[in-house]
Structures are given as structure tokens and as C-alpha cells.
């Protein structure tokens, strides 16, 4: 045995030959070269071992002759050693390497969003029809703890630190140029502009072409400091210090050299073709007081005109950490739950480190209120906000707004094949190969993002109206609007909600 074992593919391409017209679109569209045409037999064939289950072929097949199914190939059934666990051992025995994965934690941990139910008005309090009445979804993010001051005429002076105005409490999560494509970034930027919200550069710098979207851009400063310089900070609407990421708390990032193209290298200000490594910690932040220094350094650098966000991964003691951040000068805390996506992470970390955003958010909001410092910061929840109901529940738990990453990518075409780290994204998202990048036309992409967020906004308005709430501000932290279903007392207590029927 030479070290590599054949592992039967997890998924199989099933072709309905009655429907296949051998147009070869599948062949042309698969960067993994799964499909091929045999001119002698005049037939299409598929090599399942190469398939990543991205559904590009399934979606583009004009006669819908293709589907992908889960293979029923199996080892002896073993509740302890399931197929995947065994295969992972084989892989590591073959490669000697760390297993890599992409996108969010796929393991069957509880999804608390799905265990919370939403209230509606009946009789004593009218529901409100968003088609007839204003239904406000705008929010301002930033510190609210300013004192009341009046000018000589007795008018209130605006003493508030800088705020971010969102037309709807949704923003696009940090995803770097490099981890995702130019066209994906353009789609996000244009959508953010049209929607009146923000997208986030991630730790990849900001391509010169996108400076024009600056007023809808949050720039990230992360441990590698890639692409950070004066113009970058000044162009942005806000600055985010990334301390951690939900998908991989405690570790840094690694963008392989193959993705460091000319443009990526220029934007990140690093050499072309060389791996871009973000350290696990910021090497100038080993403590909360160090973070405070960075917060104020960035504020100094930008004349106190831009809110500073501190993003942390949802870990066990995140409420205490958030309390520290709320006193650090930061304007906004972003908390990223363990189901959040990533372009690449060690599988073990993605699948086992961190806690669900629902619990982290609830405990942070509660903690900050108990300490009377909730007004010091806005809270942005991230880490698998999948729908308008997740959004609504997050706000009711106490979030000011949510970041969406995976949902945004899905709307751009991502099919969650979780192969981003391979760099051959057939949907033109997580790739830098020009022929693949062009598959994502930002003209289409940005409209789909706009439609997604608009649809969520409509649903949010509909549900708010049902609750008799006509401004999203009155939903924030309104936990009475939530009830748990099938949750233990402990879980209910952490979430700060009652059980359904109570």
C-alpha cells in the first residue's frame, strides 16, 4: 500500500439518460472535470470521485437530467465509527495533514433559532398591516450613552459618537477579497449601497475599484493587518477589529498562494503567489487593555469620525469578554457564532470550538444590561443567520443588527459544497481563476442580494406587524415576544425567555 487508499465518493452524479441531450453544458461548466463526452458512444459520463456536489451542472442542465445523490456505499454500520469518521482517519493516514473544511459547522448541534417561537397580537392589541402603515426597519449602530447637552437656545446638541445607519438591520459579513472573488465583492458592495446597509471587506484590503462604495463599506483590521493603510481606513464608514471568527475561534487565517493573484497581492499589499497567513492572535493585543489601545489608535487615525467594531468569536465566556469590550471604547461588538462560515478552517476546530450565537447573544445582552452598559455598544450577531425569522429572533434576543455571510453567498449561487478551500468554485465566488470568477456577473449577483434582503425586510415587517410592533427599535431585546419550545430550564434561562404556553 503506497499510502493512499481509494475512498468511495460520498456523492454520486445520477444522469437520466432519457433526458440527457448531450449538450455538454455540464462538461463545460465543471471546473472539477467530472463530466466528459464520449464521441463514439455519443454519451455523457461522470467521474464521481471528482464531484464536490456544488450543483453547478444540476442547475445548468437544460433538460434537468442530472441530480446528485448521497452514496449508499457504506462500511459496516457503527454508531461510534460512522463512515465519515472512518474516512477522515484514512485521509489523515494518507496525508499526515490537518483536515481542512469550508463554510459553517455542519454537525447536528441544536439550532436554537428553530426552538424559539414568535408571538402575535390577538384581540387586545391590534396587529399592524405593513402594506397600509409605515413599518420601520431602520437602525443606528453605535454608542448611545451620550449625555444631554443643550446649546444657548436650549436645543439638544448632538453629542453622540459616530453612528452607522442601516435601512434594515442586516449587514454582509466580513469576507475578504482573496477568499472570495472580485465579482463577489462587487456584488456585495453594490447591494450594500442600493440597500442602504454595509458590507465588510474582511481581512483582504479594499480593491481600488471599490473605494467608491466606501460609505457602505466596513473595513477590517485583523491580525495579519493585510491591506491596512491610511486611505483604507479613511474610505470606510466603519472599522472592524477582528479578534476572532466563529468558524475558527482561537486560530488565524491562511490564504494559499494560489489565490494571491496580481490584484489580490496589490490589494493585500503582500507578495504575489505567497501564502497569506494571519496570526492566531493580534501580536499587539495580548489583553483587553491592549485592545483598548488599538481601538483608540484607529479612532485617532480617523479623527473619531468612524465607529469601531470589535468582532469576537462566540466562546464560553463571551459575555465577560463583551463586557470588557463595551468598556474599551469600541462602538459596536460583533459576535460570531460557531456555525458561521469560513473560506477554510481546520475541520476539527470548525466542528468543535465555540458556542451557538443564540446563547452567546442572549448572555451578552443580558450581561451588558445587568451592568448598565448596554448603551455603550451596539451588538451585531453573526454566525448563521439563515432567514428573516433568525434575524427577528436575534433582534428580540437583543441584537441591534445581524451580519449575514452564508445566506449572502447562497444568494450569489453558492450551494454549500464546502469546498471553498480548493479554489475551484464553480459559482465564481470562492475562486480567483478568471474563467470561474466571470461566472458571477455582479449585475445579477447584486440584484439577487438586494432581493434577498428586501424579501427578508418584507417578512420582518410582516412579523413585526403581527406583533403590533411598527419599529424594529421596539423589537430589540423584546424577549417577551419569544417562547422556547422543547428547551430545558437551563437553556430557557440562558436565553432569557419563557417556555411556550407560559
Amino acid at each position, binding site marked *: 500500500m503506497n499510502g493512499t487508499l481509494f475512498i468511495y465518493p460520498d456523492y454520486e452524479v445520477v444522469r437520466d439518460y432519457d433526458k440527457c441531450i448531450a449538450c455538454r453544458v455540464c462538461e463545460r461548466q465543471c471546473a472539477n472535470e467530472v463530466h466528459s463526452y464520449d464521441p463514439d458512444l455519443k454519451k455523457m459520463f461522470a467521474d464521481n470521485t471528482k464531484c464536490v456536489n456544488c450543483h453547478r451542472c444540476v442547475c445548468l442542465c437544460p433538460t434537468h437530467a442530472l441530480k446528485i445523490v448521497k452514496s449508499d456505499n457504506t462500511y459496516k454500520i457503527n454508531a461510534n465509527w460512522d463512515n465519515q469518521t472512518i474516512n477522515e482517519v484514512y485521509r489523515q493516514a494518507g496525508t499526515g495533514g490537518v483536515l481542512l473544511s469550508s463554510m459553517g459547522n455542519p454537525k447536528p448541534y441544536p439550532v436554537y433559532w428553530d426552538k424559539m417561537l414568535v408571538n402575535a*397580537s390577538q384581540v*387586545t*392589541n*391590534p396587529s*399592524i398591516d405593513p402594506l397600509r*402603515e*409605515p413599518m*420601520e426597519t*431602520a*437602525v*443606528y449602530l453605535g454608542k*448611545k450613552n*451620550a449625555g*444631554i447637552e443643550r446649546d444657548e437656545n436650549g*436645543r*439638544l446638541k*448632538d453629542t*453622540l459618537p459616530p*453612528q452607522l445607519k442601516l435601512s434594515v438591520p442586516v449587514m454582509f459579513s466580513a469576507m475578504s477579497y482573496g477568499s472570495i472573488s472580485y465579482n463577489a465583492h462587487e456584488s456585495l458592495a453594490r447591494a450594500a449601497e442600493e440597500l442602504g446597509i454595509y458590507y465588510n471587506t474582511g481581512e483582504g484590503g479594499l480593491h481600488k475599484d471599490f473605494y467608491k462604495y466606501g460609505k457602505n463599506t466596513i473595513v477590517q483590521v485583523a491580525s495579519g493587518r493585510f491591506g491596512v493603510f491610511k486611505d483604507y481606513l479613511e474610505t470606510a464608514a466603519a472599522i472592524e477589529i477582528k479578534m476572532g471568527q466563529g468558524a475558527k475561534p482561537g486560530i488565524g487565517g491562511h490564504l494559499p498562494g494560489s489565490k494571491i493573484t496580481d490584484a489580490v497581492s496589490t490589494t493585500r499589499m503582500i507578495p504575489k503567489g505567497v501564502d497569506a497567513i494571519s496570526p492566531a492572535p493580534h501580536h499587539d493585543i495580548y489583553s483587553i487593555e491592549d485592545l483598548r489601545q488599538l481601538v483608540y489608535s484607529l479612532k485617532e487615525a480617523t479623527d473619531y469620525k468612524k465607529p469601531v467594531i470589535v468582532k469576537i468569536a462566540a466562546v464560553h465566556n463571551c459575555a465577560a469578554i463583551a463586557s470588557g469590550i463595551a468598556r474599551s471604547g469600541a462602538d459596536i461588538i460583533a459576535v460570531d457564532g460557531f456555525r458561521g462560515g469560513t473560506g477554510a478552517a481546520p475541520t476539527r476546530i470548525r466542528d468543535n470550538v465555540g458556542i451557538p450565537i443564540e446563547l452567546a447573544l442572549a448572555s451578552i445582552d443580558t450581561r451588558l*444590561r445587568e451592568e*448598565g452598559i*448596554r*448603551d455603550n455598544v451596539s451588538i451585531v450577531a453573526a454566525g448563521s443567520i439563515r432567514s428573516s425569522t433568525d434575524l427577528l429572533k436575534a433582534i428580540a434576543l*437583543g441584537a441591534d443588527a445581524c451580519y449575514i455571510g452564508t445566506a449572502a453567498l447562497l444568494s450569489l449561487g453558492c450551494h454549500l459544497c464546502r469546498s471553498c478551500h480548493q479554489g475551484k468554485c464553480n459559482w465564481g465566488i470562492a475562486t480567483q481563476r478568471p474563467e470561474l470568477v466571470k461566472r458571477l456577473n455582479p449585475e445579477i449577483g447584486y440584484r439577487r442580494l438586494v432581493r434577498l434582503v428586501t424579501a427578508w425586510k418584507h417578512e420582518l415587517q410582516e412579523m413585526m406587524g403581527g*406583533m*403590533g*410592533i*411598527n*419599529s424594529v*427599535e*421596539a*423589537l*430589540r*431585546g*423584546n*424577549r*417577551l*415576544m419569544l417562547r422556547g419550545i422543547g428547551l430545558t430550564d437551563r437553556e430557557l434561562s440562558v436565553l432569557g425567555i419563557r417556555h411556550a404556553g407560559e
Partner: protein
Amino acid sequence: MLLEGQERIPSGCAVTGVIDRSGKGMTGEDMIRSIAVMHDRSNGLGGGFAGYGIYPDYSDFYAFHLFFDDGAAKTATEEFLGRHFEIAYASEIQTRKIPEITDEPLIWRYFVSPLSRKLESSHLDEREYTARCVNKINTYIKGAYVFSSGKNMGIFKAVGFPEDVGRFYKLEEYSGYSWTCHGRYPTNTPGWWGGAHPFGFLEYSVVHNGEISSYDANRRYIEMFGYKCNLQTDTEVIAYIFDYLLRRKKLTLTEAAHVVAPSFWSTIARKSKEDQEQETLLRKMFSSLLITGPFSIIVGYPGGLMALGDRLKLRSTVVAEKGDKAYIASEESAIRVIEPDLDKVWAPAGGEPVIFELYGGRK
């Protein structure tokens, strides 16, 4: 069954109020007549009144009205009061025994003034000191409940129809320059006297008709500032919000109204630049105090009354003027019954505060 405070109880209601802007005194009888017209808006599970200017002889003292479940509660409370206040006068509140009002608790009145030594060592201003003491009694002394705590004003409430409550408390014997009144239609309370309205906190009193949907957002926010929403009622949280905004943040009534029932963003966008800036600032600073859902309230305070309805006007409010007198009620009939010949009657827009004050201004 759970009492107020153990569970959140929504309720529908009727409100009415009157002020004589010249400062002339009125008995509570007109209020009784007015609220009686709206009998069907109550269900006999709570009614109450607030009168301003009724204790001119003790106007420098906080007038605490208390319910005691039993003598032990009274003893504990008086011990507490003795440690924190100089008690100028204490007496049982005189009531009229009528068959419609039953199961009354012990109802006492204390005119108090903070002990200067205690006040100094607390490093609080007098009102904050008093407010915290009220909160302590209500939170920690079992069976005791302070339901009125302002100077030269008093709240009178009970389980029953409001017109009966008015007769019970012999309101014909009090004279005030302004009055508010509330008739309650709760959906599931067994009827606890403390749960009746008006709800007062120091001099502020609130009567409220409606059921707000923003309750928990408002409650969780206001509780950051030392308030404790023991009753879990809308009126309580609204009273705290006004106390916070008016007393602690020193906003004007109109500004507070813009926080609680702000104009829609789309409306603000059409206003003058100056108004835009002010209203936007208030919405940004106090976004968690925005109240949604139906409400129509009358805020009573020394020297004035403010009527305010939710911004969609989901509850009716009618206001009227006749000479020095101004009226606010859920229904016009409740005004007409006490003053058929009005100078002016109108229905304020949703979110539009209507303020009537003594000619000398607020006190």
C-alpha cells in the same frame, strides 16, 4: 392565579382628565361623572384617580399612599420609613364603606421628608433618594405597596368600577387643580389593588389605555437605570420612562413625547432641518424607549397634564377646552357629560403630544 408582577397582564381601559389652568380647585366628582359614562370600557377589576394640588398644607412633603396586606407589613414599612424619613403626619385614608368595593387592604397615608443625615450620606438628590426608597419598599417589604409618592398630589385606586372607587375614597372631599382617572379592563387579573391605575412615581402619574407591544424592550432598557418593573404593566413602565426622561435626562415634555411616540422616519424627513436634527437625535439616543402598540395616556405632573397617543393612533383620545378648563378623555361623551358647552374639541394626531399647563407653568 398570578398577581400583577408575577405575570404580564394586558388590559383595555378608559381614561379621562381635567385641569383648571387658572389653578382653581375642583373636587373629584366631575371625574367620577366623566368616567361613569365610559362604564363599558371597564370591567370592574380596577379604577383609580390622581389629583394634583390636593395637599396644599403638606406641599413640601412627599405624600406616600400605601396598601398593606396586614399589620406586619405596616409595621415593617413604618420601621423602614422611620429610618429614612421624617414622618410629618400619618393617617389611615378615609373611605366610604360601599357594597361595590370589597376586600380592601389597609390604606394609609404618610407625609414624609428625607432624613437630612441619610440623604447627605447617600450622595443622591432628594428625589432620587425618595424614589429608591419607594422601590425598596415595593420590592422588599412583603405585603406593602407604595402607590402614590409625589408632593401635593395623590393617587386613589382600588379594585372595582372607577365610579365606585371614587365614591369609596370620598373624592368629593378633595380639591385639586387637575385630575386624571382610569377605568380598567384587564383580561386575566384576579384584581389586586396595587395593580389598579393610575400608576404614580414621585409626582408623575400615568393613566393609560392600551396594550403596548414594545413592553419588554422598554422594560429591559429602563431597568438598566435602577427601575424595577414589579407590576409588569404598561402603565408602570411608561411612568418610569417619563420619570427617566423628564427627571433624570431633563428632557422637555415635548422631547419626551418624541422619544416615546416619535414621528415616523418618513415624516421626520419632511420636517424642517432643525426639527429633523432634534427628532433624529432623540430617536437615535433613546431608541429603546420608543413605544409601539396602542396606547393613549395622560401623564399628570405638578402643574400640568399631557395627553399622548401612539403614533398610529390605535387608541382614541379626545381633548377639549372650555374657558380655563381643559379636558382629555378616551371618548368625547366623557367630556360632554361634565361640560356640554365646549369652546373647542379636537382629536390629536397619533404621536402628537397635547400639553395643558397652569397659566404659571409647571410647578
